[in-house]
């Protein structure tokens, strides 16, 4: 853990944080850098106590009620009055979708209360870390501390972060968050990378996504960075890179 003082005089504010399965395991370097960046900004990311799988992909594929219950248990664990910060777009979508369903449905709220022995908090704010960064002017916190990104071109890869089901179409969207954040640090955005290489299907169908990401990773040979928000697609990109190197 970094120990240097923050601009706020070393005072750290706690934020309730949902890492999710990928960030807790196969994308743990992603997790650690997020924790470090937030620490430097004066925020202490505290893991949601006893969090569980958000209910994405396999759970909602097989049983919608199970996916809803898994997501709503996580919502029930957030300490009252706190916001919840998420890092994985798919976790974010599941958690927010469950919250929206709870706001709309009386019977879902009753089920929630019976299940988790506490009332549903409709005011809980579930925020993606990029959104959190953009809402604050984070540059003063990082000045002189980060390696400048000048000269690095990056392909923003949002995965399924920009997509949502139609019943969430009036919710906020995340277009341009990565471009805004990384351009502020001196990097140059390339064209938008099309969404979703299907990381969830990677073990069964490795070719479509690996080939697709291989094109992005190979590029034109210039210094380039693929900035991803999806921890599972990060694995697909690594896979594509390994295949290319072979």
């Amino acid at each position, binding site marked *: 853990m970094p120990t240097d003082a923050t601009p706020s005089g070393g005072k750290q504010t706690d934020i309730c944080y949902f890492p999710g*399965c990928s960030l*807790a*395991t*196969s*994308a*743990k370097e992603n997790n650690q850098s997020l924790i470090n960046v937030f620490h430097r900004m004066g925020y202490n990311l505290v893991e949601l106590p*006893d*969090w*569980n*799988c958000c209910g994405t*992909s*396999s*759970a*909602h*594929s*097989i*049983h*919608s*009620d*199970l996916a*809803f*219950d*898994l997501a709503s*248990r996580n919502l029930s664990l957030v300490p009252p009055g706190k916001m919840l910060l998420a890092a994985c777009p798919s976790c974010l979508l599941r958690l927010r979708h469950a919250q929206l*369903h709870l706001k709309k449905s009386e019977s*879902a709220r009753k089920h929630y209360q019976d299940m988790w022995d506490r009332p549903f908090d409709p005011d809980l704010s579930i925020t993606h870390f990029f959104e959190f960064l953009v809402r604050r002017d984070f540059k003063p916190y990082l000045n002189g501390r980060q390696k400048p990104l000048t000269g690095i071109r990056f392909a923003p890869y949002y*995965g*399924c972060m*920009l*997509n*949502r*089901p*139609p*019943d969430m*179409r009036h919710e906020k969207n995340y277009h341009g968050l990565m471009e805004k954040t990384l351009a502020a640090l001196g990097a140059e955005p390339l064209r938008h990378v*099309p*969404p*979703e*290489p*299907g990381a*969830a*299907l990677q*073990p*069964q*169908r*490795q070719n*479509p*996504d690996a080939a*697709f990401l291989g094109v992005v990773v190979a590029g034109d040979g210039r210094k380039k960075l693929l900035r991803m928000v999806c921890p599972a697609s990060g*694995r697909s990109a*690594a*896979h594509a890179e*390994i295949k290319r190197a*072979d």
Partner: protein
Amino acid sequence: MNGDMPLPIIKLAGQKTGFDIGSEVIRRSGADFNSCLHCRCCASGCPFVDAMDYHPHGVIRLLQFKQTEQALSCATIWLCVGCHTCSMACPMAIDIAAIMDALRQIALENQVPAAEPGILGFHREVLNTVARYGRTHKLEIMLRYKVRTRDWFSDMDVGLKMLAKRKLDLMPSRVKNIAKIKHLFNGLWEGQSHAD
């Protein structure tokens, strides 16, 4: 969310059962596919369309014509990853991913053999680790998936590199209050013996 009404077993030999696939899909998904214009926006955005036997709007066409058997036994419902690219493209705001979820679940409940048994097997291994630990355990998922498919060597290079980079934890990350999680999985796979 879904109701608790058990469905009748669908007779896939073409016998009439009085089961209306259309209204069941609408009840579960909340998505009224009858407003579909067949503009194909969903298909042109879908990243998996090349692997599908019916395009997303093709599955909707099957539902409109009440082609229960084809709709429940097609590969498309298993290949959909629920990324919502189609729903974003749809001018009629039809939640196509929710329709795919509904069809997949109706197929499972009625023991319709999955057109993509490997994908169903993978979902089972993922959910088995969630039931055991409350979170996914990727090494166990992959090893059990390998046992299931008896395909030992594809992906071996990536697996070893991920292990070397400590991206595959040997031990699972666990939820403490696992009893609550286990409770959610009670009866999940009942009546689905075919799926193994």
